[in-house]
């Protein structure tokens, strides 16, 4: 049985890593959870002002970004299938597409924020202070939540870039692809958060 334990130590590596990533995902969910709690409290308090403020967001870009992230979730999931099927080239291409989609998301966000900032609507601007209370809170939440989310996109892109390099040089392969799988899990988390952010920020008109 102690010999069995030694084997367990090898396999442990993959199962343990996955469990570790899942636990980390839980912490991230709760991190954003705190923000969702704040949103919920103020949404109930300032229902009308939230509606009015949300109308100023561009639903088209929001929807586009949602589609982008959903597709990118599919592509990274496909890359895991590809690596398990010994299809190194497809795996690399799928990761690459995911990264391109992620980058597009960020570019969209850049323009979205840019437009608001050009109109002097950003935290600590004069305009923000003169808004109605509910509208101010809405935009503060908007910037905080999408900003924190964008930071997590960047983190996810970093992990996936490392995974791409490792697939390319062969250290990730069908027998051992933990980093790709766990990186994929992290990416799906980023998608999950956006699935909730999108309707709560853009679709409450």
């Amino acid at each position, binding site marked *: 049985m102690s010999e069995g334990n030694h084997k367990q130590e090898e396999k442990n590596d993959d199962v343990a890593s996955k469990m570790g990533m899942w636990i980390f995902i839980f912490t991230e969910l709760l991190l954003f959870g705190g923000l969702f709690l704040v949103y919920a409290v103020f949404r109930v308090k300032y229902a009308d002002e939230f509606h009015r403020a949300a109308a100023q967001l561009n639903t088209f870009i929001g929807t586009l970004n949602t589609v982008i992230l959903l597709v990118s979730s599919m592509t990274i999931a496909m890359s895991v299938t590809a690596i398990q099927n010994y299809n190194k080239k497809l795996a690399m291409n799928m990761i690459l597409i995911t990264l391109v989609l992620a980058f597009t998301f960020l570019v969209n966000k850049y323009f979205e924020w840019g437009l608001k900032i050009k109109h002097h609507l950003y935290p600590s601007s004069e305009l923000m202070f003169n808004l109605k209370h509910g509208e101010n*809170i809405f935009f503060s939440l908007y910037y905080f939540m999408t900003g924190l989310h964008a930071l997590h996109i960047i983190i996810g892109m970093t992990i996936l870039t490392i995974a791409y390099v490792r697939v390319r040089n062969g250290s990730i392969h069908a027998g051992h692809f933990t980093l790709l799988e766990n990186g994929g899990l992290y990416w799906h988390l980023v998608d999950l958060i956006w699935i909730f952010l999108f309707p709560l920020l853009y679709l409450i008109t």
Partner: protein
Amino acid sequence: MPEINYLSDTGKHKGIMSWLTSTDHKRIGLMYLYAILFFFLIGGSLGALMRLELMQPGQQYYSAQTYNALFTVHGIIMIFIVVIPGLSVVFGNFFLPIMIGAKDVAFPKLNLLSFYIYLTGCALAVASQFAGNGPPDTGWTFYAPYSTQTATNVVMAVFAAFVLGFSSILTGLNFIVTIHRLRAPGMKWFKMPLFPWSIYATAWIQVLATPIVGITLLMVIAERVLKIGFFDPALGGDPILYQHLFWIYSHPAVYIMILPAMGVITEIIPTFCQKKIYGYRAIAISSLAIAGVGYLVWGHHMFTSGMSTTAQWFFSLLTFIVAVPSAVKVFNWISTMYKASIDVKPPFLFALGFIFLFMIGGLTGLVQGALATNIQVHDTAFVVAHFHYIIFGGMGFAFFAAIHYWFPKMYGKMYNIRLANIYWVFIFVGFNLLYFPQFILGLQGVPRRYYDYLPQFQTGEVISGIGALILGIGIYMMIYNLFRSSKKGAPAIGNPWNGKTLEWSIPSPPPTENFEEIPVMTEQNEPYNY
């Protein structure tokens, strides 16, 4: 003492570098121990400075501003740097893998990273005292709106807490995976000793509650820097929301502090009673129950804040409920002692001290949990006494118990037992003289966090001051004894206390890999098999 053990084994680097780059859970545990000891003494000295001011009414040595900064940093250090990490990072790191029959934790490199993140948090907390606009004066609770408006170094202090929280999350993650994946063959869940059980329950709280204070602290920074307004009524926010978010973590945090402490006591009592622990399953499950129900009581810190009556009622009820699993443990400990052959060694003395002081702390908690009496005692010295009994009398004494229990295993040396008995008296008597008067003063109306008080309360404050002195002497005697014995103590055998958990089956100090061969659990080497 065996030739090669974890203390002498150096590996790739030599000297101090072999420690600073070590991923050995035992070395990491010791490094945490020394860091925590260092900050405990600083935090304690800050407490002594407060006691000094409070020896007489009127302003003696510092301004009100300085006093506010003192209790703030005292709280930050004691809570975030000493007590929350405390037992988990020292004894959890050192003994969890050994007690479940593993060679190390699941992610040893992550473990070392957690330690460095912890040190970074400590450095930031220290820096917040000296850089910028002066040390924060908000109290360790950083309540809005004051924390978002005061000119002092709140951002740096709050960021220090954030970083320390991140370290806590990574440690919790590591321990959960360790317990799920690395238990020795045959060690099913209900064959695991109870200290690992308590570490498991604690780790879940670390992982699930800490992120919420993490985001809250970021909100405070955003509020200060960007004026986002979540907690500012002038911008539409609600200060009570801050309190909710803060206590949603900080109440479970106290269970992070106490659950491993209870786990330690649960290990010590069977050993010094030479008897199987009474109610093993009840203790394991009550640890999970405390962790679970502990998430639902946070509002009892906020009864007078302006919450709705419904919320007040709910939180009061849940607070009474959460006391039940703790009481279960106390019954089990006492029942273990019944008709046992008790050997009153220092670990057992500290364990007894724990039970007595924790009971007082717990019962006075119920006084605060009841809405009517809460209004009388909220923000008074009564609360200060309560939480020092629970945290210091509870977790603190458990820490002292743990170090006296596992010292021979960690260092391969025995400390002077007679001296330990003597300073135990100093510590126990000093502690009670220091904190018990505060219950009375609080009931009589003395507020907390005040650098001054009305003259009629001086007697109580002086008794507390004397108690602090006696306690301090006891603690220094303890540190002297342990420090000296770690170098010059008599060699200790592998199992000086005749314990029945796995750490007592390996040499003292343990070899680097803990076990030559991973043990297989059978009926013979089950824990508590007396």
